[in-house]
């Protein structure tokens, strides 16, 4: 056996697998006697890493379960359909649900087309150059700016300079800038994943570039783009700091996009921060977290469809 192992290097490797390390690693063993043997170290470290990963999942589960247990009992039909009374101590959150949908929906309606068009330009209408690097750099930087800075900007630019006031439209425009990088990035990835051969075929059948993009590429990339859009809606719903300064805190049903509207997240912040009503705060949080859960499920579903389609 020994002779065979020496004469055949392949067998020497098999030996290493069975626990006897090959000479390179074996050699300094006498100096390392006090150290933990590698296989034990492996077990300890992997155990520790798993503990870390599981604690992340545990934190998530805890947050969801905690909010649901404390909040769901207070989520009644009246809570969803009534306006708040006495500063939020009584009543429900219907204007906030409406305001959240208005601000987030409008933001994505603005950022969606711009983001997708940017992605189309970057992938189909130009090749890599200083200009594309510049555009991507802009998007990357935009993605890193904190929401409070967006809030300051929206406050002074949209509300003040453009005269839109503290309103749904100011908030939506600010949010649109915030989610634009996400939409650009996900759309670009989705479009790049469309097989190059589709483009050849489409051109070969006499399409123009624009026809190729709209009829083949976008069609295949749509679920991928959808994922990005849905995640942007999620981010819009969660946003508070920027909206506090742009769409404001008025807890009434807005009558137009130039009215202020308080979103669910901001309402929750106010209720809990000012200690107005803990049951109402928990209930609002439950609605918020449920919305986020559903949106993530939707994004996940889009992603599955996209993967199925591209394959």
């Amino acid at each position, binding site marked *: 056996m020994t002779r065979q192992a020496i004469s055949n290097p392949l067998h020497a490797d098999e030996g290493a697998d069975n626990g006897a390390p090959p000479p390179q690693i074996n050699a300094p063993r006498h100096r390392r006697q006090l150290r933990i043997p590698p296989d034990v170290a492996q077990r300890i470290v992997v155990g520790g890493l798993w503990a870390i990963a599981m604690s992340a999942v545990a934190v998530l589960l805890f947050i969801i379960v905690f909010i649901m247990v404390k909040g769901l009992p207070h989520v009644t039909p009246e809570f969803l359909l009534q306006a708040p009374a006495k500063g939020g101590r009584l009543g429900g959150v219907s204007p906030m649900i409406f305001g959240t949908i208005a601000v987030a929906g409008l933001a994505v309606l603005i950022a969606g087309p711009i983001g997708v068009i940017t992605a189309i330009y970057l992938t189909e209408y130009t090749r890599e150059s200083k200009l594309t690097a510049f555009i991507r750099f802009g998007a990357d930087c935009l993605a890193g700016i904190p929401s409070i800075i967006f809030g300051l900007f929206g406050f002074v630019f949209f509300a003040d300079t453009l005269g839109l006031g503290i309103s749904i439209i100011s908030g939506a425009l600010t949010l649109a800038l915030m989610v634009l990088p996400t939409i650009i990035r996900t759309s670009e990835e989705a479009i790049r994943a469309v097989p190059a051969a589709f483009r050849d075929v489409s051109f*070969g*059948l*006499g399409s123009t570039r624009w026809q190729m993009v709209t009829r083949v590429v976008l069609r295949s990339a749509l679920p991928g783009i959808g994922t990005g859009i849905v995640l942007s809606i999620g981010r819009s719903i969660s946003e508070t700091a920027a909206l506090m300064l742009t769409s404001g805190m008025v807890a009434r049903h807005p009558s137009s996009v130039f009215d202020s509207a308080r979103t669910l997240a901001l309402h929750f912040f106010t209720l809990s921060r000012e200690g107005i009503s803990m049951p109402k705060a928990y209930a609002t949080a439950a609605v918020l977290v449920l919305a986020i859960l559903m949106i993530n499920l939707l994004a996940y579903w889009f992603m599955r469809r996209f993967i199925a389609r591209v394959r």
Partner: protein
Amino acid sequence: MMSANNEMHKVDHIRCSHVGEHCATSPGPAKIVVRDFHAGFGETQVLRNVSLDIYPCQRLAIIGPAGGGKTTFLRSLNRLNSLEHDFRHSGSILLDGQDIFASNVDVARIRRRVGMLYAVPIPLPLSIYENLTYGPRLAGIRDRHRLDELVETSLKSAILWDEVKDRLREPAHNLSGGQQQRMCLARVLALEPEVLLLDEPCSGLDPISTAKIEDALDELKSRYTVVLVTNNTKQAARASERTAFFLMGEMIECGPTAVIFTNPRHGRTSDYITGHFG
């Protein structure tokens, strides 16, 4: 301009007369004239000094070892290469006397007249019906009956009609590999092109599917000008009237298939055909 128009009429007349055998024996004016054609991508020269006539209603096979520029040549004939940003060329390719590289040419129209079938079947992520009507719709045909008619005739030409007539609304990628390739052939035929470019159309298929594709092509030979790139010399011998041999970016020789395969002028041609290299 006048003469180009005249020529086009003449060619159409021959094509429409449906006398394939006649076409094959007396070529008449060339459908495609390639003169001193050089092409490459960036720094790489791929094709050198190719001059070649392609006659209407004939099948031209292009054979040669890999990397010889066959596919680049084929993709030049419908200007697909122009999609690569670093593609460059010199010399001319005339389709019915018209330079396809001229600046005033409608490239989409050229590609409709010169259809292409790729090495692997590439169904677009649409239904079978939508795949087939993709080209005609882009060409501006909206009439439902006309589209239905085009779908039926082209599927029949590709010998696929009986297999798919009841499932036209299904996604095209549900078809088997061989069926997909015949659908791709039908998709090109639905544009009623004048020239068919086939880029190793059977390389990814099993022998039975290959036979079906070849049968379909056999049916079509009287009506179309066909350029077939193939690695399979037997296929070239079976399915062409004329053969051109490409090696390292140059066209070594071109002539009637029977002559090329029995009595080539160049040693390298016979070496390749007899399997000494490539």
